């Protein structure tokens, strides 16, 4: 079953085309990767899908509903959650408080929200840090908090924007395990990542974009051998040589 379908999505900033008629299809239960060199338009694509920007053209269908230009808070309630590349914790509040803000998305009761938040924290092995002020967390824990918050909204689709950037290798491995576990629990994941090792290990399917255009799509193996992709990442010369 198709969960997210993007058709011809285009985003322009004052004449500059950041995304150029992008097509994507994400099946329910997949881990779907989006990669591309710096400035390829990955985060812009995320922002359009998650409602931070309205796309200039194209159709985005989520769970059989057109969601173009809907506000992020509404999308969140419909089951579309995201994290930010630059983490944005509510710095003066505890970890638990941070996650509770998110778990209020599906309830009005403080007690229910707290229970749900703790459950999410436990599933991420994070519950022991629930009372720590989020501004005192390490980078890895902040990334984990981003995921915890997004999960607490009970999403059908989780958009992860470079949650592994800046992590140490062993932390990356841990994160890969965490994401796999999330998928097992039934959440579809759409992930932007720079760390090839991780995304190759995780994804069922990968799309590569450059200058806002899709240049390749396939399984990790197909992508790894795709000439266009190698060109995009390493330059024409490398391929020619």
């Amino acid at each position, binding site marked *: 079953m198709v969960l997210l379908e993007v058709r011809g999505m285009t985003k322009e900033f004052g004449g500059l085309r950041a995304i150029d008629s992008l097509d994507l299809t994400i099946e329910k239960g997949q881990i779907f990767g989006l990669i591309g060199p710096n400035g390829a338009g990955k985060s812009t694509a995320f922002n359009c899908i*998650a409602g*931070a920007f309205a796309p200039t053209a194209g159709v985005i269908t989520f769970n059989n509903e057109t969601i173009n230009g809907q*506000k*992020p*808070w509404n999308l*969140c*309630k419909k089951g579309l*959650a*995201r994290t*930010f590349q630059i983490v*944005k*914790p*509510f*710095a*003066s*509040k505890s970890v638990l*408080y941070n996650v*509770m*803000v*998110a778990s*209020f*998305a599906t309830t*009005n009761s*403080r007690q229910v*929200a707290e229970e749900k938040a703790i459950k999410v924290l436990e599933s991420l092995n994070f519950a022991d840090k629930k009372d720590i002020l989020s501004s005192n967390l390490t980078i890895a824990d902040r990334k984990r908090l981003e995921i915890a*918050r*997004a999960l*607490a*909204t009970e999403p059908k689709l989780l958009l992860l924007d470079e949650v592994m950037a800046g992590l140490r290798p062993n932390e990356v491995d841990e994160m890969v395990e965490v994401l796999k576990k999330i998928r097992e629990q039934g959440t579809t994941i759409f992930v932007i990542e720079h760390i090839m090792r991780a995304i190759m290990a995780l994804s069922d399917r990968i799309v590569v974009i450059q200058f806002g255009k899709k240049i390749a799509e396939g399984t990790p193996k197909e992508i790894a051998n795709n000439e266009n992709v190698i060109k995009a990442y390493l330059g024409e010369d490398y391929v020619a040589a």
Partner: protein
Amino acid sequence: MNYKNINKVALVAILLIAFGLPLVIRSATYLHILVLLFFYAYLTTSWNLVGGFAGVLPLGHAAFVGIGAYTSTILFLQYGISPWIGMLVGGVLATIAGILIGLPTFKMRGAYFALATIAFAEGFRVIVENIDYIGPFKINGPRGLQIPPLDIGLANFMFASKEPYYYIILIMLVAVVVLTYVISRSKLGYYLNAGGEEPEAAMALGVNVARAKLIAMAMSSFLTAMAGTFYAQFTLYIHPKSIISLDLSFEIAFIALIGGRGSIAGPILGALLLRPVGDFSRIYFGDTLPGMHLIIFGLVLILVMHYQPRGLQEPLTRLYNNLIRRITHNTTGR
């Protein structure tokens, strides 16, 4: 006794002291000072709903005080309607004004909101000063309105002694503090805090930030307007330059910032600390060093922002907790 119980005992003790104070303090001066202190604590707590939780800096709350004071006074003077009812009418009008101001500004950076609220309050003052009548309602322009102290009694919100005013403002203060406490632990409270700190992240987590702020603004302006009615009935004279003044708007914000905005105790602590500093320095320096009290006030602002940017509430809470911990350790004999 454990920590929670001690807090409860302390709270009950504070309430008992507050309600019992007029039995001990017979001097009308001190009661007057206390009434004003509670009045400011009330205003600041109401302000705190937007200024503290929603993370913006409203600097025009005097306009809402003015709306409340003028509405109830006009209704009372011209139609004999009890100020208690006027208080609610004023609250509704202020709510409408608050929403109108919030609608365009909550989407922008804080500086715009701060400046917009200043302009709104000043503009409102200028209009009141220019108008003698709105339809049948006598505004009396810059001359203000005087309430003749004739029909004393609860129905008319007018008393000969200070005690009734003391209890009314104390009850109002307790009510607004309880309300703030409830809100801070509700979904709205979480949403306000989140939206105030990181609006983008909050939005992605399902928070309609602008709407949460608007709700807070609506409540805050309603509550602030109620204080306006109290002020009018307490001083029996309102006049645009004093009641819709920037000074009042600023003082409310300063009390919150010094005390610790976004916390429940902050506004009360701020009022407890700042009001006496202002009053006593004015009394002691007023005749020999004119303006000295405002220099001191300015210094206090700068120093507190320097050393306790989250307000004095933070170190005081720490101190209190340490104290309690020490006491509980002793009593449990561990």
